[in-house]
C-alpha cells in the first residue's frame, strides 16, 4: 500500500529547510534547529500557523514536542533538552506547520518527517550511513538483526558481543559477512516484501537512498515495480555481488588468512 496520501495539499518541508543538530555536553543532550519556512507561502494565512518540532525514537517509547511559536516569528523555545532520550543515536525529528485557528485548526499545512539530525561532533559534510547501528538487548543470542519496526531500518548489534559493539563492527571479518547480508535484507524488504520504492521527491527517503546506492553499482535502475519475484530477486543478487566485488570482501578475507599463515 502506498505510504503517502496527501488529500489536503499539505506541503513537504524540504530537508535542507529543516536542519537539526544534536548537542551533548555536561549540560546534557539537546538540539538546535535551523528552520527556513519563508518560501512556503504561509504569509497570507491568518491566523498565523504554528510551528512544532517533535523528537522521537522508536514507534512507541520516546517522544517530545517543542513549540516553536508562530511561523512568522519562529524560534526555538528556551528548553530544547532531550535528556530523557539518553543516547543521541536513533533520535529522529518531525517538523509540523499547523493551522492555528478557525474551522481547519490542527490541519497540517506542511511537514517533514523522519529527519535525521547531525549527531554531536559530526561534521556538516559528514555523509550519513545508509543504515545506523544501535546496541540491542532484545535479540537473544543473535549477533545482529536488521530491524524495520521504526521509520528507518536499524542494524541492531547484540550489546553482549565480546569486545563491544564498535569493535565488532570494525572487525573486517565481521564487516565482510554482515554488510552484503544487510544489503540483501534491506533491498528484499523494499522491493519484494513492501513493494515500496519510497518517495522520489524526498531525497532523504531511506528507500530512495538505498535504491540509488544499489543502482549506482553499475547496474542501473531495478526492474519495474510490477516485475516478478524472480526478476527482482536476480537484480538484488547482482546488486549484492557488485557491492561485494567493489568492496573487495573476498580479498579482505584472503589477506587476513595470508597474514595469519605468515609466521
Amino acid at each position, binding site marked *: 500500500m502506498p505510504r*503517502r*496520501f*496527501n*488529500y*489536503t495539499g*499539505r506541503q513537504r518541508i524540504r530537508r535542507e529547510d529543516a536542519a537539526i543538530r544534536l548537542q551533548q555536553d555536561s549540560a546534557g543532550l539537546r538540539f538546535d534547529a535551523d528552520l527556513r519556512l519563508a518560501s512556503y507561502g504561509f504569509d497570507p494565512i491568518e491566523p498565523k500557523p*504554528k510551528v*512544532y518540532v*517533535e523528537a*522521537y*525514537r*522508536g*514507534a*512507541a*517509547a*520516546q*517522544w517530545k*514536542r517543542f513549540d516553536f511559536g508562530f511561523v512568522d516569528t519562529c524560534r526555538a523555545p528556551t528548553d530544547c533538552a532531550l*535528556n*530523557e532520550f*539518553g543516547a543521541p543515536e*536513533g533520535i529522529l525529528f518531525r517538523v*509540523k506547520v*499547523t493551522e*492555528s485557528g478557525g474551522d481547519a*485548526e*490542527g*490541519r*497540517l499545512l506542511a511537514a517533514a518527517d523522519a529527519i535525521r539530525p547531525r549527531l554531536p561532533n559530526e561534521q556538516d559534510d559528514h555523509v550519513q550511513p545508509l543504515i545506523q547501528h*544501535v*546496541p*540491542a*538487548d*532484545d535479540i537473544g543470542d543473535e549477533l545482529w538483526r536488521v530491524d524495520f*519496526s*521504526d521509520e528507518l531500518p536499524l542494524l541492531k548489534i547484540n*550489546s553482549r558481543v565480546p569486545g563491544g559493539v564498535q569493535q565488532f563492527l570494525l572487525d573486517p571479518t565481521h564487516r565482510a559477512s554482515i554488510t552484503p547480508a544487510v544489503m540483501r535484507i534491506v533491498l528484499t524488504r523494499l522491493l519484494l516484501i513492501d513493494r515500496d520504492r519510497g518517495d522520489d521527491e524526498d531525497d532523504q527517503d531511506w528507500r530512495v537512498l538505498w535504491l540509488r546506492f544499489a543502482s549506482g553499482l553499475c547496474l542501473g535502475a531495478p526492474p519495474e515495480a510490477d516485475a516478478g519475484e524472480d526478476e527482482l530477486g536476480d537484480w538484488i543478487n547482482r546488486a549484492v555481488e557488485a557491492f561485494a566485488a567493489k568492496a573487495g570482501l573476498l580479498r579482505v578475507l584472503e589477506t587476513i588468512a595470508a597474514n595469519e599463515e605468515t609466521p
Partner: protein
Amino acid sequence: MKLRRLTDAGVADFSAWVGRLNETPKLDPPLRLLADDATSEPFRPEVEVEQQSFANRYEAARYLAQKLAVPGVLNPESDVGLWTWLTLLYFDQLCPKRADGTRKPGELARYVVAAGSFQRIYRHLLLGPFLIYRAHESDPLAAMAVLQSPLHQPGEIVEQLASRQEFIANSDIMRCATLLYFDAVRGALRRGSGGKGPGSPRRFASTLNQYDLTYDLAALDQQALMDMLPSEFDRFRSQPPV
C-alpha cells in the same frame, strides 16, 4: 521493607528464571534475589515499599509514582534493575497462578524492561502503567481506559494505543479513549469495547493513525477529536458521559 534494585547478575538470573518458567510452569519465584547481596543492592535514596495487592494498573501506578516522587530519584524509568526488583516483589500479581497451580508468563518484556528496545517499554507490566500515569499526572483518571485493567492483563486498548508514544502522552486522546470505552460507574470497560469491529479500540487507533497524516493531533482538543470520529464510533460516543 526498603526498596532495592537487582544488579545485572540479578536481572540475568531473573530473566533466566522466567525462561524456565515457560518450560516448567509450576516454579516458585526466586524471591531470594530480592535480598541477596550478590543479586541486589539498596536503592538510593531510601524508600519504603510494602508488599500489597493492587486492584488494577491505576492503583499500582499511583502507588509507585508516589513512592518514587522523592528528592534524589532521577529518571527512575531508566533503571532496569529497579523495575525488575519491583516485578519480582509483585510477581504473584503480575503472573498469578492459575487454578491448576501453573503460571503462563508470556514474553520476557512484560517482566524485564528491554533496555534499548524502545518499542517494548510499554509492555512492561509495571513500568508501562507508571509511565502512563506520570504522563497524565495532572489528571490520571483521564487515562483510565488504559489503566483500569488488572496488572496481569493490560488488554486490547493498551496494546492498540501504546503503539505510539504520542498517543499515550496525549491527554486529549486518552480522554477520548476513556470517554469511549470506560464505564466509571462499573469501573470497567464498556461492554463491546474488547472486540475488533467497528468503533473498537483497534479501529480507534487505526483512525488516529489515518488522521495523523492530515492533522496535527497534538494540536486538537478532546472535543475536536471526538467530533472527527466517524459514525462507527457512535455506539460508544453516544453512551452517557461518566
